């Protein structure tokens, strides 16, 4: 139970005068899906950015296991097992789907010295990439150029890239946005499967999905944590209803 993979301790982020995150603390456990809810602009993406290293914390610390990663660069955190997806699709548009994922897999084993060998024929890379493609339902699209995918397909690729880096913690920023209903269902199944071996931090506005898979939910409003609790109790909270669902 006490398998804390990733932990934020009183992190804050200021953009000029704006406090986008104010003393936020939370933990991501192995085997659990931790969802973050909150109105637009509540600071959810900002939090993920601080966990992944895309933004530096104005104050507070981030721990991976017992390791303080607050001052590590995104690439260093990625290598330690923090994988993230982006809310705004962030892929390699002119590469094929396979190459997108292969490159991600390559980061695990850079083989800088292998000057005379071909990256694309190296089996371990290929296998990891193909697995990620298969998991996200993109099989058959391997040789399509990423920019020629539809919006929803690009969202699938967004996730496939993260998976190809074999992270232990997944930070997913609205992974279902832009996906159709069927793809959403597939994705939910995938997340359910992945969570067995990973810790997942999920930002998502699709309530059906969130309540289908979340084990713990944190609700953020205006940069601060409103509550962290089980899905049932979050759903029942009058405050949350008012701030987020608007019933």
């Amino acid at each position, binding site marked *: 139970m006490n398998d804390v993979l990733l932990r934020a301790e009183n992190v804050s982020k200021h953009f000029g005068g704006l406090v986008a995150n104010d003393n936020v603390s939370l933990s991501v456990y192995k085997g659990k899906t931790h969802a973050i809810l909150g109105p637009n602009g509540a600071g959810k993406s900002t939090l993920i950015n601080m966990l992944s290293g895309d933004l530096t914390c104005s104050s507070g610390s981030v721990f991976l296991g017992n390791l303080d990663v607050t001052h590590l660069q995104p*690439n260093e955190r990625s290598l330690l097992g923090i994988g993230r997806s982006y809310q705004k699709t*962030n892929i390699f548009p002119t590469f094929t789907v396979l190459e997108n994922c292969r490159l991600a897999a390559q980061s695990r084993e*850079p083989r*800088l010295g292998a000057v*005379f060998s071909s*990256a694309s024929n190296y089996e371990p890379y290929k296998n990891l990439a193909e697995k990620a493609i298969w998991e996200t339902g993109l099989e058959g699209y391997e040789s399509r150029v990423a920019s020629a995918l539809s919006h929803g397909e690009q969202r699938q690729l967004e996730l496939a890239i993260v998976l190809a*880096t074999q992270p232990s913690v997944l930070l997913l920023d609205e992974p279902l946005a832009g996906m159709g209903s069927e793809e959403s269902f597939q994705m939910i199944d995938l997340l359910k499967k992945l969570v067995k071996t990973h810790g997942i931090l999920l930002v998502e506005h699709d309530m059906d999905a969130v309540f289908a898979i979340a084990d713990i939910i944190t609700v953020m409003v205006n940069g601060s944590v409103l509550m962290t609790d089980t899905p049932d109790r979050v759903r029942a909270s009058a405050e949350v209803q008012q701030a987020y669902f608007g019933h």
Partner: protein
Amino acid sequence: MVESKNKYVLLAVMFIALLLFPTLGFDFYNDMVSRIVILALFAVSLDLLVGYAGLISFGHAAWFGVGAYAFALLSTHYQVTDSFWITLPVALIAAAVLSFIVGLFVLRTKGIYFIMVTLAFAQVFYFLVHDVPAIGGSTDGLNLYARPTLEIGNWVLLDLENPLTMYYFILAALFFSVVLLWFFLRSPLGRAVQGIKINEHRMLSIGFPVFRYKLIVFVIASVFASLAGYLFAAQSYGVNPELLSWHKSADVLLMLIFGGMGQFVGGIVGAFAFILLKDVFMTYTDWWQLWLGITIVLFVLFLPGGLASLPSRFKALVGKA
């Protein structure tokens, strides 16, 4: 796939043509062609940076100049040695070390800012060889009295004073550089570098030490440019600050765009086309600048992707018909 195969065929044809060229017996043109080959090598080194890594450098001539001046300083200015075995490594190492240091600074910037900082550093190099006598600084440059000597013990391996030997030596340098580049591009490092061109941010977030990779290509490209500069100095018995000027950086960039960037053969095609075209206009027309200018404008309008994209365009055209 088909498209890239075309390019290898083109490349092979070009090399064979260059190999056979001296047998045609246009003595003067051997020299000219080998000088273009040097520029092609220079352009290829820039292509690595611009076409594949997306680092548009406007100061690449600095490294060309480092190679050229390294040889000039060792052989003429300080008369240390003419030996190829010493001068070439010194030239390459000098470029590696200097570009490593410069890279630490310039690679912190991106896009157009990178273009300008590379220009700035190159200009500093330019003024150094223009103004500081200790490193051969003079507006008019340094004259060299001999080419590098390629000897083992007392046995002359190659006599570079012989124009034909020099020709093949230069051609071999281009060939090996291209082969190395080919290997580099398909290696893991090479692929990663190409990923950085396309989406640097995502490369970082999937775990690549982007800065370090960029620094590596920057140094590699500079070393190849230095090789080209070294050959240029050796070939033409002289160096001058012009070799490091921004005009030179712009020239090679133009050749590359003209030929087609990131196209592998683009640099080579571009160097030949650019110089030969200019030569033709200078020889046969009154207003060469006008005709060259018009040609360039038409090329840009009707042939985006440069000359190297011709085969695939042609193919597409034939395929449609």
